């Protein structure tokens, strides 16, 4: 009784004892897909790939050229529908589901049903936190509180990016401030100073925003995409939309207008008052809110911004 692990039961051409009636002989059940079909499917897949890219570029082009901002869901639905068609093609022909036993397709369908349950119920919760009390959906500090970032993990080399203690700042905000300080310092060094003066800071800031928009323009993504800029969190905190040449920032948006200028942020951040804790005019009840916000020491703190009453 050898314990051979490999597949070694050799069917006897004359008589197969396991299949005395010859029912299982041969592989006549296995469908061989023709080369022509495979090639056709490949071409269709490539066509759809080009199509989805083209439609996506077209959207950007329409926005940049005609200033028509198409709704986001359109983009998503088109791209996802095309992807689904491609996936079905791959599954049906390349993976052979169309010619295979139904069981395999059923398994895939059950699996997809599970995925849909997962996505659907999770998004129901996270998308409806503020349904009854807007307060529940309120994020204290967009980008995070910075808590726990300074908890180092000794076993791992963090030399590539030493984990900063951000003093309660979101990491993106922290990096921005770091860069601003660097630029100010560079300005100072240029003028032979060791400590940046106020002028250096201002010059550094101007340089920062120049790079900021330059980066924007260089990428060829944007210059005239208003919708995008409207949602640009950092830009709108300090500068209005670029002027005609698309590079130089011209004016600051005052903090009070931030919430109004950004539908998405205002929705989340000003959800504080109405609903649960008053009738919406009761701002004073929340006057102390920003005391708890870990980043209220920073003028650009969004939570602070949004909670601040205009007449504050």
């Amino acid at each position: 009784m050898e314990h051979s692990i490999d597949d070694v039961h050799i069917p006897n051409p004359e008589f197969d004892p396991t299949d005395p009636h010859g029912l299982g002989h041969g592989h006549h059940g296995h469908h061989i897909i023709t080369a022509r079909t495979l090639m056709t499917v490949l071409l269709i897949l490539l066509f759809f790939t080009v199509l989805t890219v083209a439609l996506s570029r077209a959207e950007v082009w329409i926005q940049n050229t005609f200033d028509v901002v198409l709704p986001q869901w359109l983009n998503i639905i088109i791209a996802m529908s095309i992807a689904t068609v491609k996936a079905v093609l791959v599954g049906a022909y390349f993976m052979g589901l169309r010619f295979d036993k139904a069981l395999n397709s059923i398994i895939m369908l059950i699996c997809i049903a599970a995925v849909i349950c997962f996505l659907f119920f999770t998004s129901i919760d996270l998308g409806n936190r503020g349904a009854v009390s807007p307060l529940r959906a309120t994020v204290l500090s967009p980008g995070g509180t910075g808590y726990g970032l300074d908890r180092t993990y000794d076993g791992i080399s963090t030399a590539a990016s030493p984990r900063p203690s951000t003093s309660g700042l979101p990491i993106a905000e922290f990096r921005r401030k770091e860069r601003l300080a660097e630029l100010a310092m560079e300005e100072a060094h240029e003028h032979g100073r060791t400590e940046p003066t106020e002028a250096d800071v201002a010059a550094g800031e101007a340089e920062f925003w120049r790079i900021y928009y330059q980066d924007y323009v260089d990428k060829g993504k944007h210059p005239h995409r208003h919708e995008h800029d409207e949602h640009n969190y950092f830009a709108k905190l300090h500068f209005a939309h670029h002027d005609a040449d698309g590079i130089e920032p011209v004016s600051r948006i005052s903090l009070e207008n931030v919430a109004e200028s950004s539908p998405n942020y205002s929705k989340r951040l000003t959800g504080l008052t109405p609903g649960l804790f008053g009738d919406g005019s009761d701002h004073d009840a929340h006057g102390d809110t920003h005391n708890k916000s870990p980043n209220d020491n920073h003028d650009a703190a969004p939570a602070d911004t949004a909670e601040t009453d205009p007449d504050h």
Partner: protein
Amino acid sequence: MATIDANKPDLPAAGAKSHPLYWKNRGFAHHFRNADEQFDACKLGMWLFLTTEVLLFAGIFCAYAIFRMLYPDAWAAGSHHLDWRFGGLNTIVLLFSSWTVASGVRAAQMGNNAALIRNLVITLICAGLFVFIKLYFEYIPKLSAGKAPGTFFSYPYAHDPHEPLWWSVYYIGTGIHALHVLIGAGLLSWVLVRAIRYEAYGPTEYTMVETSALYWHLVDLVWIFLFPLLYLIH
């Protein structure tokens, strides 16, 4: 051990190579009733395994969807940092490799070992190309610009405070996918080696080719969704 006994009647030797892995020398495990049943079982097992892969990626898609819903601006901003040309190129590379693998299975079914080898080699080249594009044109420039996940994020010109999250989802999603590309390439290399050395696959014995191909197609499927989500939707 109960099941897989050696049971070696004299082989029909005509023209057959002597190695036990040569496809005409292959039988089936003792606990199956016939080779077809074993083939079906293996394929069913592979499909079940593929469902687990789909659900694994479902976690990443779920994180993507949730944060997209919560922080649409960050996702739009993040998407703008990606270049659709590289993503599109990689999509084409993967689709093409899917076709070669499917053709490889067909070659095995037809008993055309040379075509099988040819197709597998092309597929492996495509896998290498995919990973190369990913690393050289995408990961490395982005990482060196500071567009990194989580605390490694050091790009100062972010457009949204949640952009580090976008990069986390981007790197985890594409990274785990790239890992699957490598695993799939490993499987196909094994098939390739056996095809070259033993002519191990033919019309009655191509289970390994078929299941590895299924895995490879799944990798393709995941990318078919990752590509528009990451590169095209903004």
